[in-house]
């Protein structure tokens, strides 16, 4: 009844709500999905990445990031920074050009699109006449040269994008003085490359795809030199002094050309096929870098022998006798070299190579011997192995934080010590309010610990559970082991490895106690590992225990996967979280819920068959409870077993392909490269989609029944010290909620600390609540006498929380997918409810208690429920009155994986996957906002630039 009286009209509460809640999507963490272009400004020391969905992202020093989105959502084909400016030009696949600027606005720089432009040809000309293939921002910063498919080069003025038609360099003009026989053989074709002379801004080098290269004098509007290449041209690069340039070709060769004033038709100095003599793939980009010691660095992309290594994504670095072909696990989008950009410097002296591959960013230190990789502070490839679950822990104690970092640093010894070379801009964001950890579980059995405190999500430590198990992965299956005289000298770099050796290793649930350093992880094959943080390497035996969740239930046969085989005897673990006990659920179904109580030293786990409680101090199973409905055969066979097996077989076939690739390194490479994998995946998706579309779109309306499938599926587990039996004595308790709307409560007796090892932990079922609407129970919470949620284990012991009120009466909050219900304790009577689904047609997907502080005063904060629904809305619901406070649309409702991946923090922030490799961070709080705030200052080079900058500032001032 009360819901019809609008409670929201209380003006005091409304004002308070404005001080407490605010929705913002603040920053995207991780690696951009489907990158398509790369740009770098040596002047700003900023890198730009464009994506196939039309986003551009700029990165500088850690914390300096900007994001822009083209309205067209078209693929970004090229990105070019305007020399010595805070501006860049992007070319999209619809042939439009966009000018973006970084401008300061109220103390922080912002990336804004200023102009857009589409090149128009003369009337009646084919679209190819103006299809842009090459862009050259001239160092004068006044014009852009645009090479096209027709071979003509158009000139447009900056920043207005006004076409300067009289300055167009037509292919006819270029061909005028080319020898007849050369001309006849090949027309100009499209413009592949435009390069400005490093010393003389009046000269530009024009490369046409058929091989002709022309040095063009802009002053006199004529060609000064013709270089008659005989191979299809891919790219050009000037040497620093402008006396030579280098061209690379489709046949895997590169050629050096001299430029002198006397010879108008120079002959090539040197023509080389680095991975010859057999046919090679194209070299698509090349750098020639001079050094003080005289030996140049020649760095080129591609050029591998076509037959054996044609599927490799490689970039080769040649420096004297050293040569390495860096082998990337995904397609190389583009790369650049960071070198001395001082105009006065005599040599390039390259320091680092930055490679944007399709799935990760790899930076190679060229100054340190062995060319080690540099650990990027951002753009982490979250999806090195597919993310299977995430867990967020707020406000990590400093001690634990340091220990995790120290464990992680031991894993990173093979990285270069070089400071991050892309260091433009200044981070002016306030320091993160606290230390937050985001833990991601992966398909390959690893857990990655991310520093999620600030804008830069970066990897602190990686934990692998694989060592506990015997997998069919071949330990010699290491692609890095290369013989001394291997040719080509391939070296695998990067961390992206989408293949899991065994899908059963996948991590499904994670629970970290930040006070004790105990960590519990549970996986796909019913494995539950309890770990402890150890600062040293150690060898020890992992204790095993089995939990038979079917107990007395007879006549069942598990048709799902088998449990993982364990490694017997002593196992060596590196410093960090080391498992000391393994509880194996039987049947080995995926673990669906997990809870750890570090004070009582208990871990609870649940699957589709039941749940159990394990005493990890005494290493003894306390009890198991079967929740399986006798008629529920499906649950036994394992959900979606058919789909799973299909996925498994696909994965196996890919693994086979990979094996054959590795073993046949010397032979002809098997076809299975990443793009084929993707094609196969896409086809698989498409088939599945078609299957779905064939089914008639109608929905069955039926009440849930106790006989439905998977009612026994344990969705949530919760430890609480509360009044379970009578109101005079409280005791430890374990609560479990199932898919069928049942809540079980067990009364626990944990021996006091001094007798903890001597007496067993006892458990006794005290209550069973059956929600008549039978919706899955997704959250259980006990509120103390002040209606405050009970604190976490050890939170009070560490003086971080007030002790719970054990005087007043406790209340039990049960959250099902459809309703929120508050019951009294110890006598269960229903007190309040909110029927979300009946009212709004949405269902609860995620729910967490979050603390919201007021942005106006420091002394007010309150606990509310943060709820994500299946429609992708985030709702805040008050405690204990269950009143809807506010609702924000957050995730598209079609984005099922985004909704499934969402995690809330305890302070009203959240993360969800917007692609396999990116987390979107959002905030519901007015107080805790982690978002980039940074300034890019224009280093003052010329007075011209200064004036421009000033006018830019005035512009923004006028706007504001």
């Amino acid at each position, binding site marked *: 009844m009360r819901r019809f009286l609008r409670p929201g009209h209380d003006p005091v509460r409304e004002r308070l709500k404005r001080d407490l809640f605010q929705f913002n999507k603040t920053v995207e963490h991780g690696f951009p999905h489907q990158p398509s272009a790369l740009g770098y400004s040596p002047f700003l020391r900023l890198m730009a990445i464009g994506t196939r969905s039309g986003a551009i992202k700029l990165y500088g020093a850690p914390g300096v990031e900007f994001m822009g989105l083209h309205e067209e959502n078209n693929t970004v084909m090229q990105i070019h920074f305007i020399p010595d400016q805070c501006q860049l030009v992007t070319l999209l696949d619809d042939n439009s050009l966009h000018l973006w600027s970084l401008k300061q606005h109220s103390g922080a720089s912002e990336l804004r699109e200023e102009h857009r432009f589409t090149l128009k040809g003369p009337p009646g000309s084919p679209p190819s006449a103006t299809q842009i293939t090459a862009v050259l921002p001239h160092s004068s910063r006044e014009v852009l040269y645009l090479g096209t498919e027709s071979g003509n080069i158009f000139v447009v003025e900056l920043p207005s994008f006004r076409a300067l038609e009289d300055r167009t360099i037509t292919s006819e003009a270029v061909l005028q003085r080319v020898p007849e026989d050369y001309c006849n053989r090949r027309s100009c074709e499209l413009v592949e490359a435009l390069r400005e002379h490093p010393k003389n801004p009046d000269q530009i080098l024009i490369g046409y795809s058929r091989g002709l290269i022309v040095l063009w004098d802009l002053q006199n509007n004529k060609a000064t030199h013709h270089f008659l290449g005989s191979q299809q041209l891919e790219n050009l690069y000037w040497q620093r002094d402008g006396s030579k340039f280098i061209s690379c070709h489709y046949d895997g060769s590169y050629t050096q050309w001299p430029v002198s004033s006397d010879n108008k038709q120079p002959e090539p100095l040197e023509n080389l096929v680095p991975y010859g003599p057999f046919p090679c793939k194209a070299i698509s980009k090349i750098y020639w870098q001079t050094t003080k010691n005289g030996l140049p660095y020649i760095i080129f992309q591609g050029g591998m022998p076509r037959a054996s290594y044609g599927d490799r994504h490689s970039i080769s670095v040649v420096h004297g006798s050293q040569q390495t072909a860096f082998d990337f696990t995904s397609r190389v989008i583009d790369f650049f070299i960071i070198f001395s950009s001082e105009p006065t410097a005599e040599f390039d002296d390259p320091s680092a190579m930055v490679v944007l591959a399709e799935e990760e960013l790899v930076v190679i230190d060229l100054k340190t011997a062995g060319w080690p990789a540099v650990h990027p502070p951002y753009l982490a490839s979250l999806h090195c192995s597919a993310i299977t679950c995430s867990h967020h822990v707020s406000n990590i104690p400093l001690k634990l934080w340091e220990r995790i970092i120290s464990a992680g640093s031991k894993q990173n010894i093979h990285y270069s010590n070089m400071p991050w070379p892309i260091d433009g801009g200044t981070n002016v964001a306030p320091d993160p309010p606290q230390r937050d950890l985001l833990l991601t579980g992966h398909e390959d059995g690893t857990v990655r610990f991310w520093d999620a405190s600030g804008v830069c999500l970066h990897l602190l430590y990686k934990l692998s559970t694989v060592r506990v198990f015997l997998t069919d992965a071949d330990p010699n299956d290491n692609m890095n082991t290369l013989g001394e005289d291997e040719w080509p000298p391939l070296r695998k770099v990067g961390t992206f490895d989408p293949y899991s050796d065994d899908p059963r290793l996948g991590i499904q649930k994670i629970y970290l106690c930040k006070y004790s350093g105990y960590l519990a992880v549970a996986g796909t094959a019913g494995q539950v590992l309890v770990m402890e943080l150890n600062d040293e390497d150690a060898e020890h035996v992992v204790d095993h225990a089995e939990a038979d969740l079917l107990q007395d239930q007879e006549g069942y046969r598990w048709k799902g996967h088998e449990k993982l085989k364990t490694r017997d005897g002593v196992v060596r673990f590196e410093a960090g979280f080391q498992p000391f006990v393994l509880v194996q659920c039987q049947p080995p179904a995926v673990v669906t819920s997990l809870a750890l109580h570090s004070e009582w030293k208990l871990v609870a786990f649940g699957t589709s068959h039941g749940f159990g409680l394990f005493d990890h101090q005494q290493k003894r199973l306390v009890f198991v409870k079967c929740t399986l409905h006798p008629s529920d055969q499906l649950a036994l066979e394992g959900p979606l077993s058919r789909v799973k097996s299909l996925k498994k077989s696909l994965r196996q076939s890919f693994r086979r392909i990979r094996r054959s690739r590795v073993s046949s390194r010397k032979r002809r490479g098997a076809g299975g490269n990443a793009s084929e994998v993707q094609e196969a995946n896409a086809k698989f998706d498409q088939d599945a989609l078609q299957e779905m579309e064939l089914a008639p779109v109608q929905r*069955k309306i039926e009440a849930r029944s106790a006989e439905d499938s998977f009612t026994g599926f344990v969705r949530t587990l919760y430890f609480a010290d509360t009044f379970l039996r009578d109101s005079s004595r409280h005791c430890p308790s374990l609560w479990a909620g199932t898919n069928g709307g049942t809540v079980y409560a067990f009364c626990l007796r944990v021996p006091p600390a001094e007798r903890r090892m001597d007496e067993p932990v006892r458990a006794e079922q005290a209550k069973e609540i059956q929600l008549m609407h039978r919706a899955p129970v997704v959250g259980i919470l006990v509120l103390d006498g002040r209606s405050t949620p009970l604190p976490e284990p050890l939170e009070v012991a560490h003086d971080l929380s007030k002790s719970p009120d054990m005087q007043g009466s406790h209340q039990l909050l049960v959250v099902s997918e459809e309703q929120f219900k508050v019951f009294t304790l110890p006598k269960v009577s229903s007190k309040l409810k909110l029927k979300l689904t009946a009212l709004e047609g949405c269902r609860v997907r995620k729910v967490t208690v979050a603390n919201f502080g007021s942005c106006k005063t420091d002394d007010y904060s309150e606990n509310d429920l943060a709820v994500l629904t299946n429609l992708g809305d985030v709702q805040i619901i008050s405690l204990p009155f269950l009143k809807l406070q506010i609702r924000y649309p957050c995730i598209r409702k079609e984005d099922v994986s985004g909704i499934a991946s969402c995690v809330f923090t305890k302070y009203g922030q959240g993360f969800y996957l917007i692609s396999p490799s990116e987390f979107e961070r959002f905030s519901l709080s007015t107080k805790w906002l982690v978002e980039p705030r940074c300034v890019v200052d224009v280093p003052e080079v010329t007075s011209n630039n200064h004036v421009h900058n000033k006018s830019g500032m005035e512009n923004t001032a006028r706007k504001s």
Partner: protein
Amino acid sequence: EFRRFSLERSKPGKFEEFYGLLQHVHKIPNVDVLVGYTDIHGDLLPINNDDNYHKAVSTANPLLRIFIQRKEDADYSAFGTDTMTRKKNVLSNVLRPDNHKKKPHIVISMPQDFRPVSSIIDVDILPETHRRVRLYKYGTDKPLGFYIRDGSSVRVTPHGLEKVPGIFISRLVPGGLAQSTGLLAVNDEVLEVNGIEVSGKSLDQVTDMMIANSRNLIITVRPANQRNNVVRNSRTSGSSGQSTESSLPSSTPNILANFLQGEEESDEEDIIIEDSGEPQQIPKAAPTSESLESLTQIELLHESTQNGFLPSSEMNLNHSAGSVSMEYEVQDAEHKSLEEDGTIITL
């Protein structure tokens, strides 16, 4: 045997008393009997509870003809429409113009013999083209048994006719609750679920809403076949039309609140098993434990009542606060009888 006696129309008393009176008058104190009466249309209708007893008394014009049968040899099928007149009256012609020739008269069973499974409600507040159907899943084993789909319907808007997406019943499962009621049909457009409009909601949302309300599902539909509608004008000639009209103020939100309130009361009770004992229904917490917030709200509403709220909403408020006024109860009873009339009219 015939007996004639008088009864005070304004104070008919309870059915039990009346039953005792009949037994007394006929000198059959220990014989179970069925009591029936003829209403103004000549239909033989049962009297077996307070509601239909009061109805019978109120419709007496001025004579109330009562039929008494020994229960053992009672003919249950005797009750129903047309039972006394045996001729097609105007009302049934309006209701069933297409099949009145073939179909025999409708039989009404004894209300106490089984739970209601469905009813048409709120006839007086809905447009004639709409039908609000209540399905009582509670206590039956029958599946709800219907499917819904996406579709489009044509609406009259200020800009003319417009095609808008809608939700429709796509299939009725034979033997299911939905089919057996005869109140829902394939291609009926679903407009509301338990008082909440479905427009703008997706098929999945509406599915979830229906399942969430499945124990007491109230669907408002626009029937595909508009010929079976209750015609408002003829309703006044129905057995109870005038009584509801006069006693229920027809302000829509109020009625809506009424039946949702009812739903709240009849709502599923969760079950608790303590220490592996017997399952018990979870009781409602005592009103004293109601939050302060709700008290402030009641106060708020009192204030607004003084500022010109309808007195009827005050009655609702009283009800929610736990002190049911006599006046309200009467109203509630009338409302219930309306529901049952709805069933009779369209069956």
